[in-house]
């Protein structure tokens, strides 16, 4: 545990990526494999079962110290992390708390602690034992451990106990560190991480084993997805346009459809098996030859309709454990195939896109002959003739109900993760509205004690003809401002606060921001009757006053336009 704590402390004190990779790689090389497995899991942010809630931990300290609730709240909204708040408060409060009379069981654990047990003992024995205790015993155990730990360890202990463990290390960085530390290709590490994770010696050993060339049957395990980046004009200008393939970018969910002798598997990009939600696609896959893997988009799209349904139809299915007959009829589903990763057992990922598309085309024709073959659609694309066509093609794609186009280099292999250069996404410009800032709430982590979570409003209809129009909550947004704007806005919010509701403040309705979003639809759950997708701040409209912000009627009009476009075509 000491080595892990030291690693976390050093990572926390490093800002350079290179340094972080070295630290992690060194640590993993030296650590015991069982502990190293835990380190990887924790650094990758693998979600574990929450052992004790932050609230329960807080209750333990609060009951023991008689510190008022409101003071805890103020501290927590200032620090932005409950585990850290408790770690900072404990040294202050410990003197007011009577020493714990150890009950025998707790005494046993404390005794073990003094012999510097390994990390997996903490994770697999101590912490679950504490979580399983009766409330009184649990209080006793937590207080006793706090007493016995040095102050600088409190944070780590509280973090591990409350489950959430994000310390500013990106997943990609851990992958790089494993690759560097054990002399492996990053793609191979990513691929191995696709197998189910386990905090065991064996798992870590198979993750880091030397690369033996032969690749056994992957079974149900998906290949790492190749991800596209948003298009930057300067990044493509160099080459000739004819080397690029343009296809519609559909607004569904990314999926990998695997056909093996052992069964059919549909994986989402979030590495979840979604067979149950889309049984029709599993049926359709019977037409696909064994040991074949398709990459594409799962989307609601009826057999006879010229374009797909909105994303909200897909959402109705995603929330379900199983999908009934009614939902199958109301939200018919298709798989839009755009890449072929494996065919008849051959790994095609290193061949060119052009080659893979040709094989995909042949395969698609054969599937199409089968009864439910229509559910497998080919993502129609074309070779780009001239760069000037790009924006026009994008506009056409949007007319057809896509959210933009994908731009793929015809020579590109199928890589893993987000690698720049071969695949770009070029989405339509977001819809925008000017909205008024009305509430702010402090962020968490790096944004602790900074007001960074904003709520925006639009002007609604007056209640009565004679009364003034009211601002109605429209959307929340967290991103889009740069650091200096965040600081400036934070100062403004503090000096223009009208009311405080716990961590939230209402502010004078004066500032206007341009809010961008990808979609808008009616919603019963929202006060303004509308819900938007991916709202974010595009810019601070210093040139606008609150009176000139958009209205709910404007938003309604956008919503209607979007719906009409769907029906018209």
């Amino acid at each position, binding site marked *: 545990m000491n080595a892990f704590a030291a690693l976390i402390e050093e990572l926390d004190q490093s800002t350079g990526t290179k340094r972080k990779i070295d630290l992690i790689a060194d640590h993993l090389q030296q650590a015991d494999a069982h502990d190293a497995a835990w380190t990887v899991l924790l650094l990758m942010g693998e979600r574990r079962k929450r052992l004790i809630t932050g609230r329960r931990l807080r209750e333990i300290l609060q009951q023991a110290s008689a510190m008022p609730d409101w003071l805890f709240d103020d501290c927590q909204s200032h620090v932005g992390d409950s585990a850290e708040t408790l770690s900072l*408060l404990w*040294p202050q409060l410990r003197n007011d708390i009577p020493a714990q009379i150890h009950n025998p069981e707790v005494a046993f654990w404390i005794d073990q602690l003094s012999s510097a047990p390994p990390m997996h003992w903490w994770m697999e024995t101590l912490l679950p034992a504490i979580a399983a205790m009766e409330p009184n015993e649990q209080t006793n155990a937590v207080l006793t451990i706090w007493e016995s730990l040095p102050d600088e360890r409190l944070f780590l202990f509280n973090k591990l106990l409350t489950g959430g463990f994000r310390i500013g290390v990106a997943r990609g960085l851990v992958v790089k560190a494993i690759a560097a530390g054990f002399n492996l290709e990053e793609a191979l590490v990513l691929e191995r991480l696709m197998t189910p994770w386990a905090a065991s010696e064996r798992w870590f050993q198979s993750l880091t084993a030397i690369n033996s060339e032969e690749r056994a049957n992957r079974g149900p395990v998906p290949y790492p997805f190749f991800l596209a980046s948003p298009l930057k004009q300067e990044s493509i200008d160099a080459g000739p346009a004819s080397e690029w393939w343009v296809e519609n970018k559909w607004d569904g969910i990314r999926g990998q459809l695997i056909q093996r002798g052992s069964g059919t598997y549909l994986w989402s990009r979030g590495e979840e098996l979604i067979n149950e939600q889309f049984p029709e696609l599993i049926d359709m896959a019977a037409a696909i030859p064994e040991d074949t893997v398709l990459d594409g988009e799962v989307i609601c799209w009826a057999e006879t309709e010229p374009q797909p349904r909105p994303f909200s139809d897909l959402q109705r299915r995603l929330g379900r454990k199983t999908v009934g007959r009614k939902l199958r009829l109301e939200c018919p589903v298709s798989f839009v195939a755009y890449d072929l990763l494996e065919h008849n057992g051959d790994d095609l990922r290193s061949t060119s896109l052009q080659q893979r598309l040709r094989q995909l085309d042949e395969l698609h024709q054969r599937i199409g002959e089968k009864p439910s073959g229509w559910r497998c659609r080919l993502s129609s694309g074309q070779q780009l003739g001239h760069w000037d066509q790009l924006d026009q093609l994008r506009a056409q794609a949007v007319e057809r109900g896509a959210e933009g186009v994908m731009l793929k280099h015809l020579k590109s292999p199928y890589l893993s993760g987000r690698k720049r250069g071969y695949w770009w996404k070029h989405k339509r410009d977001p819809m925008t509205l000017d909205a008024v800032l009305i509430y702010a709430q402090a962020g968490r982590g*790096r944004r*602790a004690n900074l007001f960074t979570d904003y709520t925006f409003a639009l002007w609604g209809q007056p209640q009565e003809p004679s009364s003034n129009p009211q601002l109605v909550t429209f959307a929340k947004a967290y991103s889009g401002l740069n650091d200096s704007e965040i600081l400036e806005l934070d100062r403004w919010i503090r000096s223009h606060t009208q009311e405080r509701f716990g961590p939230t403040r209402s502010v004078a309705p004066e500032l206007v921001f341009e809010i961008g979003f990808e979609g808008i639809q009616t919603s019963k759950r929202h006060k303004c009757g509308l819900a938007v997708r991916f709202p974010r701040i595009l810019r601070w409209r210093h040139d606008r006053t609150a009176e000139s912000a958009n209205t709910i009627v404007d938003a309604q009009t956008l919503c209607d336009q979007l719906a009409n476009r769907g029906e018209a075509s």
Partner: protein
Amino acid sequence: MNVLERTDSGLYCRAADAWIDPSRPVSRALITHAHADHARPGCGEYWAVDVSEGVLRQRLGRDIHLHCMPYRQEFWLNQACLSFHSAGHVLGSAQIRVMVEDQVWVVTGDYKRCPDPSCEPFEVVPCDVLITEATFGLPIYAWAPGTLVATQIRDWWHGDRERPSLLFCYSFGKAQRLLAELNAIGVDEEVLLHGAVETVTRHYREAGVAMTSSRPVSELPRKDSLAGRLILAPPSAHRSAWMRRFRSPQTAFASGWMAVRGARRRRGYERGFVLSDHADWQGLVQTVLHSGAKTVYVTHGQSDVLARFLRERHGLDAQPLDQLI
């Protein structure tokens, strides 16, 4: 009748016809200390502690009309009896005691309670009404002794002799305290200073504060890599053009705000050393209790929190300062 009242220009004492740390030019100003948010230029006359004279004149102008008083010496302005008492914040920092008839009010200005080798320790001044700051008025703030932090800083600096060690800190007060704290734990290696730090440090040397030797970094040849050297610079120099002369330095910031992880990461320093010239939570609460004041006004930072705590836990008549008429 209140001894002090709130005006647009700041705290005003009618009996003395004087303002305490006025926020805009007034005829007569009483100054707690020379930080820019407390001492502003343009006033008719200034009253301040004698040891603060050097820094005050440097910041407000050579020829300001300045009356210098030693700590604790009483003086009269019209109907008010006034005196300055050490606040332990920076060199020459003071609390201001105002007595009108039999009423004693004390304005703490900025202060701290832990020992600091670069300035006089805080003096407890009994009073009826106390106006205290609350910059770090939350129980999550508790300071370790300066010698301990100085040891951490030395270990960090000596731990990497391949690179320059850039330590950011406020140029007046914190920087000189660091030099004095380092001196106190036996560091005698020369420390390099940014220009803004250097100009203030001079006044500390004139006042006889014991500090490690120092030199402006500008005196060293530009091609010197400065590997293994410790350089003190104000936070405004972080990521500035000035910083370009240091090859891949290790960076740190010394401030009370560094107690919270998010605050450090947001600023982008690798290390944070928790060292403050303000009182921590215990320091604030103890100071109020020791003063014996029954009425307390709280200003700066967490004024609502501290005032509410004093009311609920200690039964004092405590309010944020903006409640004072």
